[in-house]
């Protein structure tokens, strides 16, 4: 059973801001609802007002704007998986989206929603982090863009204020040689939350290499390793340095999905595997 609430489905941002400003009690924004309604069934959230954002025209857009990809707040995971644009230049996002829950849920669950729930293991974080994504946040008072690595502030906590709403994401378009891989530890080959999720991305032309890890710390971890990787030294030494960076920047826990020890191990293993897929050892 869901608690009682008032449901609104406004057609403009202004109306959303009005509601956000004038409603007493807790207000929840609804896109796919795949986290919200589960939380409500568990009584961990009891919003008095729910604002369905699916009627805002802009929010259902996915398009390239200059050298960035805009992903509207109502874009679902399956829309990402099926998008030609995404599959062409941002493939790691489609690969990551395929890791989110099950097919039916992905028809509802949105990319932005996955970020806004801000679970430590949210599958969309690592891929978006390594691509350098900005979160477009709007409110009645101001519009701001927050780099994704600054978005999460704790377990299920983020920088969003009560009167703010995420309009969409701006994902940096990297040059054509860019390549990304997302690997995830799961207990089943079916839908599962991440036990460890590691994304790696390389653009040789831009001399950019980054890794991002989910489910190994209270918030997703982003590591720009370009300096190490494109600096002096041989591959083996650089790999060791990268692995050391990864190890030092994570702080996993034991839970029902995995153990701290194994999470540390697999963060290392996945980092190495991704690196070997992105770069043939000995090339540099």
């Amino acid at each position: 059973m869901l608690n009682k609430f008032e449901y609104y489905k406004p057609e403009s941002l202004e109306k959303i801001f009005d509601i956000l400003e004038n409603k007493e009690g807790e207000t929840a924004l609804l896109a796919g609802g795949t986290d919200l309604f589960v939380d409500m069934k568990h009584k961990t959230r009891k919003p008095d007002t729910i604002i369905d954002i699916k009627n805002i025209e802009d929010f259902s857009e996915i398009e390239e704007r200059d050298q960035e990809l805009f992903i509207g707040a109502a874009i679902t995971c399956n829309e990402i998986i099926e998008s030609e644009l995404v599959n062409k230049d941002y493939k790691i996002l489609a690969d990551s989206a395929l890791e989110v829950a099950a097919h039916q849920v992905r028809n509802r669950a949105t990319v932005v929603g996955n970020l806004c729930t801000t679970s430590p293991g949210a599958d969309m974080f690592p891929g978006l982090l390594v691509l350098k994504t900005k979160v477009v946040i709007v409110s009645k008072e101001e519009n701001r863009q927050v780099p994704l690595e600054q978005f999460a502030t704790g377990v299920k906590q983020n920088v969003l204020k009560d009167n703010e709403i995420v309009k969409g994401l701006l994902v940096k378009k990297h040059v054509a040689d860019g390549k990304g891989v997302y690997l995830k530890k799961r207990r089943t080959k079916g839908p599962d939350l991440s036990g460890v999720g590691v994304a790696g991305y390389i653009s040789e032309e831009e001399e950019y290499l980054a890794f991002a890890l989910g489910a190994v710390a209270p918030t997703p971890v982003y590591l720009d390793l370009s300096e190490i990787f494109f600096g002096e030294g041989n591959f083996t030494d650089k790999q060791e340095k990268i692995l050391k960076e990864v190890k030092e920047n994570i702080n996993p826990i034991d839970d029902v999905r995995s153990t701290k020890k194994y999470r540390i191990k697999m963060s290392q293993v996945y980092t190495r595997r991704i690196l070997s897929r992105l770069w043939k050892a000995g090339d540099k």
Partner: protein
Amino acid sequence: MTEEMIGKSVKRIKALEKVTGNAKFVHDIEIQGMLHAKMKLSPHAHAKIVNIDTTKAKSLPGVWAVLTGKELPYKVGLYLVDKDILAVNKVRYQGEPVAAVAAETKEIAEKAVELIEVEYKKLDAVLDVQKAVEEDAPLVHENLGELESAPVFFPKPGTNIAHHTKIRKGDTEKGFAKADHIIENEFTLPMVDHTAMETHTSIAEWKPGRKVKIWTSAQSPFAVRNLLANGLHLNHEDIEVIVPYVGGGFGGKAGIHFEPLVTCLSRAADGRPVKIVMSREEEFNSVPVRQGLYSRLKTGVNDDGEIVAQETEFLWDSGANADYGVNVTRAAATAGVGPYEIKNVKLDSKTVYTNKIFGTAYRGFGHLEILWAIERQMDLVAKEIGISPYDIRMKNGLDVGSVTITGEHIGESHGRVKECLREVAKEIDFENRDSDDLPEGKKRGKGVATLHKAPAMPTNTGTAAFLKFNENGTLNLTVSLTDYGQGTYTALAQIVADQLDMPVDKVNVVWENNTETEPYDWQTVASKGLFMSGNAVIKASQDMAQQLKEVASEPLRCSVEDLVIEDEKVKVRHHLDKYISFKELAMGYTYENGNAIGGPLVARGNYIAQGLTNLDPETGQGLPALDWTYGAHGVEVIVDEDTGEFEVVKIASAFDVGKAINKENVIGQIQGGVIQGYGSAVMEGYQFSEDGRLLTNTFTDYKVPSIADIPELKPIIVENAQEDGPYGARGVAEHPMLSIPSVIGNAVQDAIGVKIKEMPVIPEKIFELIEANK
């Protein structure tokens, strides 16, 4: 009829209703005026109930009844009557119902439950079986000595031991003294949930004159009726239990569950029907599970692989109640060394109470659990003495002439475990485990494991079947064995069709079960359904054949002995062109002049387990087994020797089913069972916090296999007929999942040498062992 009916893959009965969404489960049923029930659950593993205040809940508009344990002075249970309907005085596990509400809507019921205030005083909880058997352990049931139990169970007052089964064969001291090697290991496995897709749900309508009508998602309508009658002191004939379509059971819907609660709520709500539906979270928290098990096995073995002595201890984590668990302990003990002949055996199997959700029957009834220990130990022993896991099993496996641990002599009519083992070893090319084709760091492993199980049930378990003709010469078959997916009804229809030589689609097996109109069946459990009901149905068919002949003999002017049944007709043996059709006899035969004889034909057959005995309480000797179904699995895995990640490449599974009545449905049971076992093996298991809270209470946290998880599977049907089985058939419903964890553990050990002793087999644990071996 020219077509062979037995062994044919006749399409499943009621498939059309299920595939169109027309099949109505209890979940789908609404009764006029129906109220909705909701339970208040204990947040603590062990606590005294100081006070329950229901005032606010009772005054909420739309609330018809609020009950607490104080108003329900009843105990309910199958073998050991230890279950409260709602907790009385104290709670024994997190998730135990302490109060319940019946209200006009689900929303009101939920609101009312929130308004119930319960004051607890926490008690020390015992969560571990080994601690629970220590002398100063907190007691889960202080009044154990006062509880009623079936005469073959022996609760130990003043302890947490609800039952102790002893098996003694030969002399283990002498056996160990002679052994070349003695190898001892401990094994553990956690509680596991059935996760039938339909959660438990029941509706009760209390009626004047202390009568009650129940619709319930249960495996065994008569067990519900009997236990409800005993528990609430009602007359059996005053209780009507209806079981429509049931969305999976796997043992979890055997015995009795929430039927007493809804009955009491309906009574308290002036006879309004009351429905309860478990949410998935409640299903995990408050509905019984497969028990956990701690095992210690000490094996004496000679250089040539002959096992000469076996000492075994099983401590079953039965959780807070053991009404069903005591029999798991007993039944599994009778199979307690696996399908092997060992001359000297000392086995102790104890049901132990802890402050966790309680145990019940689950597909395999303790055998998956003991076989985890037995079949892992077999490979550990083989490794230690340097013999092949295949050879050690062939060396010790049961043969015609072997004597089991309860003194049963294996005869020609028993199945052949070694034949199953040979088949699976061949199928996975067991001797060849070359890893040269694999990338660096990956190793191929192969494993085999055997299994056996007999039905676990009272010695006098019985069943019956009715047949009646319809006006058009078709038949209705009625049994109260339930078919919640096994396909038994389809096989029973085939048996009738074969016996009476008629098309199978003219045999209508009455789907909905009802204790008012159907003949008795003890329970739909234990893989005994086809065996026992099949035999009853053969007898009913023979009875019908006899009656048909008797009526037909007059107009055909010959003796009954000269008549045969053929092609829906009764024919004169030597003049096959002289006959009368079933249709003409169904409602009585009418002569041309209007005279009539016979009358509407009804027939019956019954069957009761033959020759079973209670076991000697000190030695366990006796005959516990109606029939043993044997089987074996072979598995190929590829393991990453750095991370412990592994891939099950192939499973081959062979079972000696005696005779497959419906091949396609046998394969369906094998596929479904193997994958359920695969879930137990590699992903499932309850996890608790230190204070006894269940951490895995949703499908998000408790994973079961999906379609993406299934490895290649080769089902193999072996057929060595069982003399007293219908057409030689044995049950094979539970067996496919047995030993799946063991065989995967064995294959992983084979690949990289790690000695896995804890279930489930997950990369985390393999990795720990890899690290420890470094």
